[in-house]
């Protein structure tokens, strides 16, 4: 009878030895079930206990317990080995070719360079306390011209070739985003700092002009705003965009809604580059929105987002921006 237990013990050792060198987890589990599971061999031995004479039972039971504990101990060790073996085995798999392409989807998405530039600039201006405003692209003559000190029958109207609405010629496709300053000033009381990005339209189509393009205008109105402040803000903005070495220049020019008015140039690798217009808001503009120009002064400056995007991304052809060439556009990122 005790011999039987010895046989069991040596059989277990045999089973154990069989998988010891490759302790795969499921084999270890099978071994455990075979031996000490509910229907395992040791359990069967325990069921024999009842059939033994009473005085034999404690001794046999004790021996059986010893055997079981020994098996359990060995199984535990094997189990620990199995975990380690599993990890090692996993780590030993062949190296993958990490240079294989990651995906067979056709493309990566991207945001249009003009949107990227616009987002980037809005972020900068917001830090300086500006608020973004948008306005209508189809607007009444009053907002696009008259209120901006561009009267009827005045040569300053010729500065912008305008698309007129056929059904209602008092409405035009806005020629600049400056219409937004009128809408905003009629709604809000000073002081204000606004930026208005958006699409604008002019009757123009050649290699360097598109009938639709994008502008961003910045307007500040408060007591005591001066041309020096205008210069300061533009310099700060250009520094954020082009880096701290940027040089700006201000040339007197004419935009009807500002006075004095100036062109903004920045110095680049190809010399001075005209990048936008600016000036002090004309008292006539304040008059048309019922702001008191004796109390408040303000400045406005604007620039083309298309030109800015071309400069920042080093693009040479304006038309490429509006052709929807997929391979061109999928080069752009999502983060501005």
């Amino acid at each position, binding site marked *: 009878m005790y011999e039987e237990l010895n046989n069991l013990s040596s059989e277990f050792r045999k089973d154990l030895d069989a998988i010891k060198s490759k302790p795969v987890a499921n084999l270890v589990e099978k071994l455990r079930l075979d031996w000490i599971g509910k229907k395992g061999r040791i359990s069967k031995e325990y069921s024999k206990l009842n059939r033994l004479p009473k005085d034999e039972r404690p001794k046999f039971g004790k021996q059986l317990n010893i055997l079981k504990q020994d098996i359990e101990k060995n199984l535990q060790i094997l189990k620990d080995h199995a975990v380690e073996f599993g990890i090692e085995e996993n780590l030993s798999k062949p190296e993958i070719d990490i240079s294989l392409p990651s995906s067979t989807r056709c493309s990566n998405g991207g945001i249009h360079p003009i949107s990227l530039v616009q987002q980037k600039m809005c972020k900068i201006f917001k830090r300086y306390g500006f608020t973004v405003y948008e306005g209508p692209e189809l607007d009444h003559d009053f907002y696009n011209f008259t209120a901006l000190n561009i009267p009827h029958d005045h040569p300053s109207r010729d500065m912008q070739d305008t698309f007129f609405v056929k059904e209602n*010629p008092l409405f035009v496709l806005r020629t600049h985003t400056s219409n937004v300053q009128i809408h905003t000033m009629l*709604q809000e009381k000073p002081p204000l700092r606004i930026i208005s990005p958006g699409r604008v339209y002019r009757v123009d189509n050649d290699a360097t002009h598109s*009938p639709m393009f994008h502008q961003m205008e910045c307007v500040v109105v408060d007591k005591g705003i001066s041309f*020096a402040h205008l210069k300061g803000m533009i310099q700060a903005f250009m520094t954020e965009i082009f880096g701290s070495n940027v040089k700006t220049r201000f040339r007197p020019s004419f935009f009807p809604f500002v006075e*004095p008015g100036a062109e903004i140039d920045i110095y680049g690798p190809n010399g001075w580059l005209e990048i936008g217009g600016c000036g*002090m808001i004309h008292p006539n503009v304040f008059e048309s929105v019922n702001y008191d120009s004796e109390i408040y002064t303000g400045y406005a400056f604007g620039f083309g987002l298309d030109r800015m995007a071309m400069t920042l991304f080093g693009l040479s052809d304006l038309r490429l921006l509006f052709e929807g060439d997929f391979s061109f556009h999928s080069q752009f990122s999502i983060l501005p």
Partner: protein
Amino acid sequence: MFISINWLNDYIDLSNYTLDEITKSLTQLGIEVEGINIKESLDDKLIVGRVVSVAQHPNADSLHYCKVEIDESGTHLDIVCGATNVTKNMLAVVATVGSKLPDGTPVKESKIRGQISQGMLCSEKELDISSNHDEIIDLKENLAIGSKLNQYIKPDAVLELGLTPNMGHCLSYIGIARELSAFYSIPLIQNPRQKTISFSLNKKVELTVKVKEDSGCQRFVALYMENIKVVESPLWLKQRLELTGLRSVNLIVDATNYIMLESGQPIHAYDYTKLDGKCLQVCKAGKNFHSLITLDDKKSLLDQNDIIICDKNNAVGIAGVMGGKNSEIDPTTNKIVIEVANFSPSQVRRTAKRLNTHTESSHRFERELDINQPPQVANKVATFIASILQSEHNIQAKVADESIDFYPTKARAKRIAIRVSRTRSVLGYYKISISDVINILERLCFKPLDKTDDRILFEIPSWRNDVNKEIDLIEEVGRLVGFDNIPYEMPKMNIQPHQEDPFINFKDFCRTILAANGLTEVITYPFFSKKDFTALNLDENHIFWPTVSLNNALNEEQRHLQTTQLPGLLKALEKNRNRNQQGSRFFEVGRGYFQSNGQENKTFSEILSNKERHFSGVEHINEQTRPFERTFLSGILDNPLTTKGWDNKEEKNVDFFSVKELIFNLFSAAGIHQHEWTRVNQEKIPFLHPKASAFLVWNNQTLGWIGELHPRTCLAYNLGSNIPVIFELDIEAVYKLSETTSLKIESTTKKFPSVSRDLSLLVNDKISFKDLETSINSHPKQKHQKGFHLFDIYKGENIEQGWKSFAATLTFQSEKKTLTDGEIDKEMSSLVKWLKDDLGATQR
């Protein structure tokens, strides 16, 4: 405008300034130098010669064989010449052998049709004076034979200036000279041409001038001249005009142009004998005058409100725009009337614009003129003509003793005050003093009349019509101080940023999500043609039919404003397909434009019913007529969705569900969970595939549509039978939905495990997934079943025609305990029975 530096030196001595300095100064004054054309000194070997004989070339009918004397000692050259005007004794420009023409062409001895030619006789074109190439230059002046031509024609530089509309006072040599004189603080040269001779007529002239009050003409000067001769202008005059971009016509016309360029004042000359009734009248065309043939030989139809000049019977000129052919100076003209007027700028502008005739004259009138200068200008022209006729042709022209000067309301000089304090605060240039301000403005000819500690009253020169307010004076000060000398400063402001429209941010959010889902943003033109709408299968009653069109579209293709962004995307796709680009995926954020006159009540009202995004209104503008704009997010996905690859053996095409997933991702990201899909009514979106398209709806409002492109529309955009999937969302509505949606967040974690069971059902083919979903969710004895996931749809073998199989995994979970098999079996069998009753479904 072109400005010759040599000519400019007649009015201001610029000999101490380099061309580069002058260019920079003009830029700093606000006069843009757009181009510089350098005229080099003529070659020393271009000399004056006298043609001593002209003979027919023996071997060519159109050529002459000339002997040309080139020095006092009688040296002759043999020269072959093709010009029609070569005559004996003519003084001509000889390009001798070894010389170079201005364009760099070397002149060599050559044989022309067997005859030796030792140089050439030059035309104006060859000397870069004008484009005249048919005739050689006839030097009528008294020049020494053999003298170098560069003694008479000096090297020069011509600046092309870009003048903004406020710079009317700079549209002349004197105007530019005044600016530079102020900038450099150097004086102008007064009266460049001395009036040395008297040309007095000493008799009364029969000429009357009438100006109707409603003509808006403020001043009209007419000056009579007689015994003139219409001759060619001297070379220097021709050259100056040509340099400035004007063609030489004859001395009389050239004189009017020359003095216009000098003074900025347009001038017209009439042939006196052609004026009926010897009168000139300025009036509206009214009903009497319908048309006029102008000097450019065009027939201009007159509007009743056009201002014209007429004689007793006929219109003879369109005020400020162009003179009439009927009173033109011709070679026989002997008596002229010089007109120097001050017409209404807006009247001239309106007429010139309507006639599409933009002239040097109308350009200047539109920008307002110096009302004080017409009499002087008239005298200048007369003197100019008379002096040249006398000195060059020995003709004694006579000028009326007095011009007729109609000037009923004498303009008073404007007076404007400027405050030094205001100047400082507007410019941010605090170190400027009152004497600086006076000094600067005096240099610009503003005359100080009176002053206090802060305020100076100035009289404005009559040519500065652009100066009307204090701010205009401040600008002048800023300009002369130099913007570069104003410091850089940051304003000190206490400002709360205003509330920003969150929709602006939402658009950027949509861009980010779509790009993150593999789409690329494009920007296309929002213009269409009617052809596009036909291609979209739209009829004229459709809400998408073009409702806003442009009066002056660039072409018919761009006549209308878009009501859907689809055509722009389809055209972009076509271009990409032509480049063999596969799998293009675009989106665009743009606007649709609609007329507001009640059209929104048409069939597509759901999309366009909201008009809440209003822009501020001003009382006198009828906002009811404002077209309205709606922001759309639209996109297109081309085949294939995925290409074959090392980890993917099958290429997959895009379909309805590719876009549905995209929209789902966008909506989840925006926290929107309530929306439904409904079938598209063909009448509403006829460019979608009727069987594979849907509206996206929430609360009876259409948020957008998605679907496969209709095969007919696909073909119409040259996309063949390879059908892309498209979508368009009214993101203003989507945005509003995202604002009203609040996320329902379960904040407890599940303690007990969930259990899954698969269920396979046989249902009629007409039962949609949604029917199944609704039925499962409405199971009356539903207790622990929480969710289900469809993993298979099957039709075909082993399944009867008209039936299909849905296979789904159902999830069961309790918050109180671990569920037993028995509890789940019970609920499953109840559900199966319910589905049989509700949908006629049987378990497979």
